[in-house]
Protein backbone atom coordinates (compact mmCIF):
# COMPACT_ATOMS: atom_id res chain seq x y z
CA UNK A 1 0.00 0.00 0.00
CA UNK A 2 2.16 2.82 -1.28
CA UNK A 3 0.81 5.88 -3.06
CA UNK A 4 1.35 6.02 -6.81
CA UNK A 5 4.00 8.61 -7.78
CA UNK A 6 2.95 12.26 -7.79
CA UNK A 7 4.66 15.64 -7.84
CA UNK A 8 4.39 17.44 -4.49
CA UNK A 9 3.70 21.16 -4.24
CA UNK A 10 3.48 23.26 -1.08
CA UNK A 11 2.51 26.78 -2.13
CA UNK A 12 2.95 29.57 0.43
CA UNK A 13 -0.07 31.62 -0.60
CA UNK A 14 -3.66 31.10 -1.64
CA UNK A 15 -2.98 32.83 -4.95
CA UNK A 16 -0.10 30.46 -5.72
CA UNK A 17 -2.28 27.46 -4.80
CA UNK A 18 -5.09 28.62 -7.10
CA UNK A 19 -2.62 29.16 -9.95
CA UNK A 20 -1.20 25.64 -9.48
CA UNK A 21 -4.69 24.17 -9.29
CA UNK A 22 -5.62 25.78 -12.60
CA UNK A 23 -2.35 25.04 -14.40
CA UNK A 24 -1.62 21.41 -13.42
CA UNK A 25 -3.06 18.24 -14.95
CA UNK A 26 -4.93 15.94 -12.54
CA UNK A 27 -4.16 17.79 -9.31
CA UNK A 28 -5.56 17.08 -5.85
CA UNK A 29 -5.63 19.37 -2.83
CA UNK A 30 -4.20 17.99 0.42
CA UNK A 31 -5.62 19.40 3.67
CA UNK A 32 -4.95 17.41 6.85
CA UNK A 33 -4.68 14.13 4.97
CA UNK A 34 -6.69 12.01 7.41
CA UNK A 35 -9.02 10.86 4.61
CA UNK A 36 -7.01 11.57 1.46
CA UNK A 37 -3.81 9.88 2.67
CA UNK A 38 -5.55 6.49 3.17
CA UNK A 39 -7.05 6.90 -0.31
CA UNK A 40 -3.56 7.60 -1.69
CA UNK A 41 -2.10 4.61 0.18
CA UNK A 42 -4.84 2.41 -1.28
CA UNK A 43 -4.38 4.03 -4.69
CA UNK A 44 -8.07 4.87 -4.69
CA UNK A 45 -6.85 8.37 -5.49
CA UNK A 46 -4.01 8.71 -8.00
CA UNK A 47 -3.36 12.40 -8.62
CA UNK A 48 -0.38 13.45 -10.75
CA UNK A 49 0.07 16.52 -8.55
CA UNK A 50 -0.57 16.90 -4.85
CA UNK A 51 -1.03 20.51 -3.69
CA UNK A 52 -0.46 20.72 0.07
CA UNK A 53 -2.35 23.66 1.61
CA UNK A 54 -0.56 23.33 4.96
CA UNK A 55 1.89 26.20 4.44
CA UNK A 56 -0.73 28.82 3.58
CA UNK A 57 -0.91 31.03 6.65
CA UNK A 58 -4.12 32.83 5.59
CA UNK A 59 -6.08 29.56 5.73
CA UNK A 60 -5.33 29.07 9.44
CA UNK A 61 -6.92 30.72 12.44
CA UNK A 62 -10.07 31.48 14.41
CA UNK A 63 -11.65 34.90 14.95
CA UNK A 64 -14.95 36.52 15.89
CA UNK A 65 -16.40 39.37 13.83
CA UNK A 66 -19.87 40.83 13.29
CA UNK A 67 -20.44 38.01 10.78
CA UNK A 68 -19.85 35.42 13.48
CA UNK A 69 -17.20 32.87 14.35
CA UNK A 70 -14.77 32.57 11.44
CA UNK A 71 -12.53 29.53 11.08
CA UNK A 72 -9.85 29.19 8.40
CA UNK A 73 -10.36 26.03 6.37
CA UNK A 74 -6.93 24.60 7.29
CA UNK A 75 -7.44 25.06 11.03
CA UNK A 76 -7.01 21.68 12.69
CA UNK A 77 -9.80 19.97 14.55
CA UNK A 78 -7.58 19.96 17.65
CA UNK A 79 -7.10 23.74 17.48
CA UNK A 80 -10.86 24.22 17.18
CA UNK A 81 -11.51 21.81 20.04
CA UNK A 82 -9.14 23.70 22.34
CA UNK A 83 -10.28 27.20 21.34
CA UNK A 84 -11.99 29.28 24.09
CA UNK A 85 -13.59 31.37 21.29
CA UNK A 86 -15.27 28.29 19.85
CA UNK A 87 -16.31 27.11 23.32
CA UNK A 88 -18.04 30.44 23.91
CA UNK A 89 -19.62 31.01 20.50
CA UNK A 90 -20.24 27.54 19.13
CA UNK A 91 -20.17 24.80 21.81
CA UNK A 92 -21.96 22.33 19.51
CA UNK A 93 -18.86 22.27 17.32
CA UNK A 94 -16.70 21.19 20.24
CA UNK A 95 -19.21 18.60 21.37
CA UNK A 96 -19.22 17.08 17.87
CA UNK A 97 -15.41 17.16 17.62
CA UNK A 98 -15.18 14.86 20.65
CA UNK A 99 -16.55 12.18 18.33
CA UNK A 100 -14.32 12.94 15.32
CA UNK A 101 -11.67 10.20 15.08
CA UNK A 102 -9.05 10.23 17.81
CA UNK A 103 -6.77 12.92 19.18
CA UNK A 104 -4.01 11.73 16.86
CA UNK A 105 -6.19 12.25 13.77
CA UNK A 106 -7.66 15.50 15.11
CA UNK A 107 -4.10 16.77 15.48
CA UNK A 108 -3.90 16.91 11.68
CA UNK A 109 -7.48 16.74 10.40
CA UNK A 110 -8.94 20.11 9.37
CA UNK A 111 -12.44 21.59 9.27
CA UNK A 112 -12.13 22.42 5.57
CA UNK A 113 -10.90 18.96 4.68
CA UNK A 114 -13.76 17.33 6.55
CA UNK A 115 -16.44 19.51 4.95
CA UNK A 116 -15.01 19.06 1.43
CA UNK A 117 -14.56 15.30 1.83
CA UNK A 118 -18.20 15.13 3.00
CA UNK A 119 -18.22 11.62 4.39
CA UNK A 120 -21.85 10.53 5.02
CA UNK A 121 -20.97 9.57 8.62
CA UNK A 122 -18.82 12.62 9.39
CA UNK A 123 -19.72 14.84 12.32
CA UNK A 124 -18.66 18.26 11.02
CA UNK A 125 -20.94 18.24 7.94
CA UNK A 126 -23.74 17.07 10.26
CA UNK A 127 -23.44 19.92 12.74
CA UNK A 128 -22.98 22.32 9.83
CA UNK A 129 -26.49 21.40 8.70
CA UNK A 130 -27.69 22.73 12.04
CA UNK A 131 -25.31 25.67 12.51
CA UNK A 132 -25.76 26.91 8.91
CA UNK A 133 -22.31 28.43 8.38
CA UNK A 134 -21.39 30.50 5.34
CA UNK A 135 -18.60 29.05 3.23
CA UNK A 136 -16.08 31.33 1.56
CA UNK A 137 -14.76 29.80 -1.64
CA UNK A 138 -11.88 31.25 -3.66
CA UNK A 139 -11.42 30.70 -7.37
CA UNK A 140 -9.09 32.30 -9.86
CA UNK A 141 -11.77 34.76 -10.94
CA UNK A 142 -12.83 35.78 -7.47
CA UNK A 143 -14.38 34.83 -4.17
CA UNK A 144 -17.92 33.63 -3.59
CA UNK A 145 -19.89 32.91 -0.45
CA UNK A 146 -22.56 30.23 -0.19
CA UNK A 147 -24.68 28.84 2.63
CA UNK A 148 -23.58 25.37 3.75
CA UNK A 149 -27.00 23.97 2.83
CA UNK A 150 -26.14 24.53 -0.85
CA UNK A 151 -22.72 22.85 -0.58
CA UNK A 152 -23.46 19.08 -0.59
CA UNK A 153 -24.46 17.62 -3.95
CA UNK A 154 -24.37 13.92 -3.07
CA UNK A 155 -22.29 11.30 -1.33
CA UNK A 156 -18.69 12.57 -1.00
CA UNK A 157 -19.55 15.26 -3.53
CA UNK A 158 -19.75 19.03 -3.05
CA UNK A 159 -20.48 21.85 -5.43
CA UNK A 160 -16.85 23.01 -5.20
CA UNK A 161 -15.53 23.55 -8.74
CA UNK A 162 -12.26 21.85 -9.76
CA UNK A 163 -10.40 25.20 -9.70
CA UNK A 164 -11.76 26.36 -6.33
CA UNK A 165 -10.56 26.19 -2.72
CA UNK A 166 -12.67 26.46 0.44
CA UNK A 167 -10.94 29.15 2.48
CA UNK A 168 -13.14 29.97 5.45
CA UNK A 169 -16.15 28.73 7.39
CA UNK A 170 -18.18 31.41 9.20
CA UNK A 171 -20.72 30.37 11.82
CA UNK A 172 -23.33 33.12 12.32
CA UNK A 173 -23.86 34.47 15.86
CA UNK A 174 -26.45 32.48 17.79
CA UNK A 175 -29.55 34.28 19.07
CA UNK A 176 -30.11 34.47 22.83
CA UNK A 177 -31.74 31.46 24.47
CA UNK A 178 -30.29 29.01 21.96
CA UNK A 179 -29.44 25.54 23.22
CA UNK A 180 -27.72 22.70 21.40
CA UNK A 181 -26.94 19.03 21.89
CA UNK A 182 -25.11 16.34 19.91
CA UNK A 183 -25.60 12.59 20.32
CA UNK A 184 -23.91 9.77 18.45
CA UNK A 185 -23.84 6.01 18.48
CA UNK A 186 -20.78 4.13 17.25
CA UNK A 187 -19.52 0.68 18.25
CA UNK A 188 -16.25 2.07 19.61
CA UNK A 189 -15.06 5.61 20.45
CA UNK A 190 -13.70 7.23 17.30
CA UNK A 191 -15.42 4.85 14.91
CA UNK A 192 -17.58 6.25 12.17
CA UNK A 193 -21.02 7.04 13.54
CA UNK A 194 -23.78 4.57 12.76
CA UNK A 195 -26.25 7.36 13.49
CA UNK A 196 -25.64 10.85 14.91
CA UNK A 197 -28.10 13.62 15.74
CA UNK A 198 -27.60 17.35 16.30
CA UNK A 199 -30.32 19.57 17.76
CA UNK A 200 -30.52 23.34 18.17
CA UNK A 201 -33.51 25.02 19.84
CA UNK A 202 -34.05 28.77 20.20
CA UNK A 203 -36.71 29.93 22.64
CA UNK A 204 -38.51 33.19 21.89
CA UNK A 205 -40.82 35.46 23.77
CA UNK A 206 -43.67 34.05 25.90
CA UNK A 207 -42.02 30.64 26.14
CA UNK A 208 -42.62 29.74 22.50
CA UNK A 209 -40.07 27.92 20.36
CA UNK A 210 -38.68 30.53 17.93
CA UNK A 211 -36.48 28.18 15.92
CA UNK A 212 -35.85 24.43 15.88
CA UNK A 213 -33.21 22.59 13.90
CA UNK A 214 -32.71 18.82 13.85
CA UNK A 215 -30.09 17.15 11.66
CA UNK A 216 -29.38 13.44 11.34
CA UNK A 217 -26.34 11.68 9.90
CA UNK A 218 -26.14 8.01 8.96
CA UNK A 219 -29.50 7.55 7.23
CA UNK A 220 -28.83 9.18 3.84
CA UNK A 221 -25.73 9.80 1.68
CA UNK A 222 -25.56 13.31 3.17
CA UNK A 223 -26.63 14.47 6.64
CA UNK A 224 -30.22 15.73 6.46
CA UNK A 225 -32.40 18.24 8.26
CA UNK A 226 -35.74 16.89 9.49
CA UNK A 227 -37.70 19.99 8.52
CA UNK A 228 -41.15 18.47 8.91
CA UNK A 229 -40.34 17.51 12.50
CA UNK A 230 -38.88 20.96 13.13
CA UNK A 231 -42.16 22.56 12.01
CA UNK A 232 -44.01 20.70 14.76
CA UNK A 233 -42.08 22.72 17.34
CA UNK A 234 -41.74 26.22 15.91
CA UNK A 235 -44.22 28.75 17.28
CA UNK A 236 -45.42 26.31 19.94
CA UNK A 237 -44.78 26.17 23.67
CA UNK A 238 -42.28 23.50 24.70
CA UNK A 239 -44.10 20.36 25.79
CA UNK A 240 -43.37 16.70 26.32
CA UNK A 241 -46.19 15.78 23.93
CA UNK A 242 -44.73 17.89 21.14
CA UNK A 243 -41.26 16.43 21.65
CA UNK A 244 -42.73 12.96 21.63
CA UNK A 245 -44.48 13.67 18.32
CA UNK A 246 -41.21 15.01 16.90
CA UNK A 247 -39.39 11.81 17.92
CA UNK A 248 -42.04 9.62 16.29
CA UNK A 249 -41.81 11.63 13.08
CA UNK A 250 -37.99 11.50 13.17
CA UNK A 251 -38.09 7.72 13.50
CA UNK A 252 -40.38 7.45 10.49
CA UNK A 253 -37.88 9.22 8.22
CA UNK A 254 -36.69 6.66 5.64
CA UNK A 255 -33.16 5.36 6.21
CA UNK A 256 -30.67 3.55 4.03
CA UNK A 257 -29.27 0.51 5.80
CA UNK A 258 -26.53 -2.03 5.18
CA UNK A 259 -25.96 -5.62 6.30
CA UNK A 260 -24.45 -4.57 9.63
CA UNK A 261 -26.90 -1.81 10.45
CA UNK A 262 -30.20 -2.24 8.65
CA UNK A 263 -32.60 0.63 8.01
CA UNK A 264 -34.97 -0.21 10.90
CA UNK A 265 -32.07 -0.25 13.36
CA UNK A 266 -30.86 3.13 12.15
CA UNK A 267 -34.37 4.53 12.42
CA UNK A 268 -34.58 3.22 15.97
CA UNK A 269 -31.26 4.91 16.76
CA UNK A 270 -32.57 8.20 15.34
CA UNK A 271 -35.40 8.15 17.86
CA UNK A 272 -33.21 7.13 20.80
CA UNK A 273 -30.45 9.65 20.07
CA UNK A 274 -32.84 12.49 19.24
CA UNK A 275 -34.65 11.69 22.49
CA UNK A 276 -31.38 12.05 24.43
CA UNK A 277 -30.54 15.27 22.63
CA UNK A 278 -33.97 16.75 23.35
CA UNK A 279 -33.74 15.69 27.00
CA UNK A 280 -30.44 17.56 27.30
CA UNK A 281 -31.83 20.64 25.60
CA UNK A 282 -34.82 20.53 27.90
CA UNK A 283 -32.56 20.39 30.95
CA UNK A 284 -30.87 23.57 29.69
CA UNK A 285 -34.22 25.27 29.20
CA UNK A 286 -34.78 25.02 32.92
CA UNK A 287 -38.23 24.73 34.40
CA UNK A 288 -40.69 24.61 31.53
CA UNK A 289 -44.00 22.99 31.10
CA UNK A 290 -42.91 19.47 30.41
Amino acid sequence: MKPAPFAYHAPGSLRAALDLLAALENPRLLAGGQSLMPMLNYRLATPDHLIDLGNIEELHGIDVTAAGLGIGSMTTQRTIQNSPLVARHCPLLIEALDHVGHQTTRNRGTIGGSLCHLDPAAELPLVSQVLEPTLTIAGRVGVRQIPFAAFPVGQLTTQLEPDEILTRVTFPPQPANTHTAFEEFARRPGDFAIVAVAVQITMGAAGLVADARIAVGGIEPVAVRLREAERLLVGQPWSADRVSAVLDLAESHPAEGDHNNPAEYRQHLVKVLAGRAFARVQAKLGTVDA
Partner: protein
Amino acid sequence: MPELYPIAVTVNGRRYEMQVEGRVHLADFLRHELDLTGTHLGCEHGVCGACTVLVDGISVRSCLMLAVQANGRTVETIEGLAAADGTLHRMQAALGAHHGLQCGYCTPGVLMTLVEFQRENAGRPVTEADVRHALSGNLCRCTGYQGIVDAALEVLTEADH
Protein backbone atom coordinates in the same frame (compact mmCIF):
# COMPACT_ATOMS: atom_id res chain seq x y z
CA MET B 1 13.43 8.94 -12.27
CA PRO B 2 10.84 10.27 -9.83
CA GLU B 3 11.43 13.78 -8.58
CA LEU B 4 13.20 14.07 -5.24
CA TYR B 5 12.58 16.75 -2.64
CA PRO B 6 15.20 17.95 -0.14
CA ILE B 7 14.14 17.82 3.50
CA ALA B 8 15.84 18.65 6.78
CA VAL B 9 14.30 16.93 9.75
CA THR B 10 15.38 16.37 13.35
CA VAL B 11 14.59 12.88 14.62
CA ASN B 12 15.22 12.04 18.27
CA GLY B 13 17.60 14.98 18.53
CA ARG B 14 19.64 14.11 15.44
CA ARG B 15 19.39 16.24 12.32
CA TYR B 16 19.08 14.58 8.92
CA GLU B 17 19.28 16.22 5.50
CA MET B 18 17.88 13.87 2.89
CA GLN B 19 16.23 13.66 -0.51
CA VAL B 20 12.84 11.96 -0.59
CA GLU B 21 10.23 11.05 -3.13
CA GLY B 22 6.98 12.98 -2.71
CA ARG B 23 4.89 9.87 -2.17
CA VAL B 24 6.94 8.42 0.70
CA HIS B 25 5.06 8.67 3.96
CA LEU B 26 6.79 9.49 7.20
CA ALA B 27 6.65 5.93 8.55
CA ASP B 28 8.42 4.46 5.51
CA PHE B 29 10.94 7.30 5.63
CA LEU B 30 11.76 6.54 9.27
CA ARG B 31 11.99 2.80 8.66
CA HIS B 32 13.61 2.57 5.24
CA GLU B 33 15.75 5.69 5.01
CA LEU B 34 16.76 6.19 8.65
CA ASP B 35 16.62 2.50 9.69
CA LEU B 36 14.44 3.48 12.66
CA THR B 37 12.34 0.33 12.47
CA GLY B 38 10.82 0.72 15.94
CA THR B 39 7.91 2.58 14.37
CA HIS B 40 5.57 -0.15 13.15
CA LEU B 41 3.07 -0.13 10.32
CA GLY B 42 -0.08 -2.10 11.01
CA CYS B 43 -2.85 -1.04 8.68
CA GLU B 44 -1.25 1.81 6.72
CA HIS B 45 -4.55 3.63 6.45
CA GLY B 46 -4.86 5.40 9.74
CA VAL B 47 -6.89 2.96 11.79
CA CYS B 48 -4.57 0.93 14.03
CA GLY B 49 -2.32 3.59 15.61
CA ALA B 50 0.81 1.40 15.53
CA CYS B 51 2.76 4.02 13.55
CA THR B 52 2.04 6.89 15.96
CA VAL B 53 5.02 9.26 16.39
CA LEU B 54 5.28 12.81 17.74
CA VAL B 55 5.87 15.69 15.32
CA ASP B 56 6.69 18.99 17.02
CA GLY B 57 5.41 17.35 20.19
CA ILE B 58 1.98 16.28 18.96
CA SER B 59 0.97 12.77 18.01
CA VAL B 60 0.43 11.94 14.34
CA ARG B 61 -0.13 8.78 12.37
CA SER B 62 3.07 8.59 10.40
CA CYS B 63 1.35 6.58 7.62
CA LEU B 64 -0.98 9.57 7.07
CA MET B 65 1.74 12.19 6.77
CA LEU B 66 4.27 12.54 3.98
CA ALA B 67 7.97 12.66 4.74
CA VAL B 68 8.23 15.95 2.81
CA GLN B 69 5.71 17.42 5.25
CA ALA B 70 8.17 16.78 8.09
CA ASN B 71 10.62 19.22 6.54
CA GLY B 72 11.85 21.64 9.21
CA ARG B 73 10.10 19.73 11.97
CA THR B 74 11.14 17.71 14.99
CA VAL B 75 10.11 14.06 15.17
CA GLU B 76 10.17 11.81 18.24
CA THR B 77 9.95 8.05 17.84
CA ILE B 78 10.07 5.06 20.17
CA GLU B 79 13.86 4.89 19.72
CA GLY B 80 14.19 8.24 21.48
CA LEU B 81 12.15 7.34 24.52
CA ALA B 82 14.68 5.50 26.69
CA ALA B 83 17.66 7.39 28.13
CA ALA B 84 21.03 7.18 26.36
CA ASP B 85 22.28 4.68 28.96
CA GLY B 86 19.36 2.38 28.21
CA THR B 87 17.23 3.29 31.22
CA LEU B 88 13.66 2.86 30.14
CA HIS B 89 11.13 5.68 30.15
CA ARG B 90 8.81 5.23 33.13
CA MET B 91 5.93 4.37 30.84
CA GLN B 92 8.03 1.69 29.10
CA ALA B 93 9.04 0.13 32.41
CA ALA B 94 5.44 0.16 33.66
CA LEU B 95 4.18 -1.55 30.51
CA GLY B 96 6.64 -4.38 31.13
CA ALA B 97 5.75 -4.64 34.82
CA HIS B 98 2.01 -4.81 34.11
CA HIS B 99 2.17 -7.19 31.15
CA GLY B 100 0.98 -4.34 28.96
CA LEU B 101 2.43 -6.00 25.89
CA GLN B 102 2.69 -9.45 24.41
CA CYS B 103 3.72 -9.50 20.75
CA GLY B 104 4.77 -5.86 21.01
CA TYR B 105 3.63 -4.80 17.59
CA CYS B 106 1.31 -2.02 18.79
CA THR B 107 3.57 -1.02 21.68
CA PRO B 108 5.59 1.79 20.01
CA GLY B 109 2.38 3.52 18.97
CA VAL B 110 0.79 2.96 22.37
CA LEU B 111 3.83 4.49 24.07
CA MET B 112 4.00 7.57 21.85
CA THR B 113 0.28 8.14 22.39
CA LEU B 114 0.70 7.79 26.16
CA VAL B 115 3.74 10.10 26.19
CA GLU B 116 1.70 12.87 24.55
CA PHE B 117 -1.15 12.19 27.00
CA GLN B 118 1.27 12.29 29.93
CA ARG B 119 2.79 15.61 28.84
CA GLU B 120 -0.61 17.20 28.26
CA ASN B 121 -1.91 16.10 31.64
CA ALA B 122 1.21 16.71 33.69
CA GLY B 123 0.26 17.34 37.30
CA ARG B 124 -3.45 16.79 36.63
CA PRO B 125 -5.42 13.87 38.03
CA VAL B 126 -6.46 11.38 35.36
CA THR B 127 -9.05 8.63 35.54
CA GLU B 128 -9.20 5.19 33.99
CA ALA B 129 -11.86 6.53 31.61
CA ASP B 130 -9.45 9.29 30.48
CA VAL B 131 -6.74 6.72 29.79
CA ARG B 132 -9.07 4.44 27.84
CA HIS B 133 -10.30 7.40 25.82
CA ALA B 134 -6.72 8.47 25.06
CA LEU B 135 -5.90 4.93 23.93
CA SER B 136 -9.04 4.53 21.82
CA GLY B 137 -7.06 5.09 18.62
CA ASN B 138 -4.55 2.31 19.31
CA LEU B 139 -5.51 -1.26 18.50
CA CYS B 140 -3.94 -4.11 20.50
CA ARG B 141 -4.91 -7.70 19.67
CA CYS B 142 -3.01 -9.42 22.49
CA THR B 143 -3.53 -7.82 25.86
CA GLY B 144 -7.19 -6.88 26.03
CA TYR B 145 -5.84 -3.45 27.05
CA GLN B 146 -6.14 -4.01 30.81
CA GLY B 147 -2.38 -4.29 31.34
CA ILE B 148 -1.78 -1.17 29.23
CA VAL B 149 -4.37 0.79 31.19
CA ASP B 150 -2.95 -0.42 34.51
CA ALA B 151 0.57 0.61 33.46
CA ALA B 152 -0.55 4.03 32.28
CA LEU B 153 -2.55 4.65 35.44
CA GLU B 154 0.38 3.68 37.64
CA VAL B 155 2.61 6.26 35.98
CA LEU B 156 -0.04 8.93 35.59
CA THR B 157 -1.17 8.78 39.19
CA GLU B 158 2.34 9.15 40.59
CA ALA B 159 2.68 12.46 42.40
CA ASP B 160 5.30 13.86 40.00
CA HIS B 161 4.10 12.46 36.69
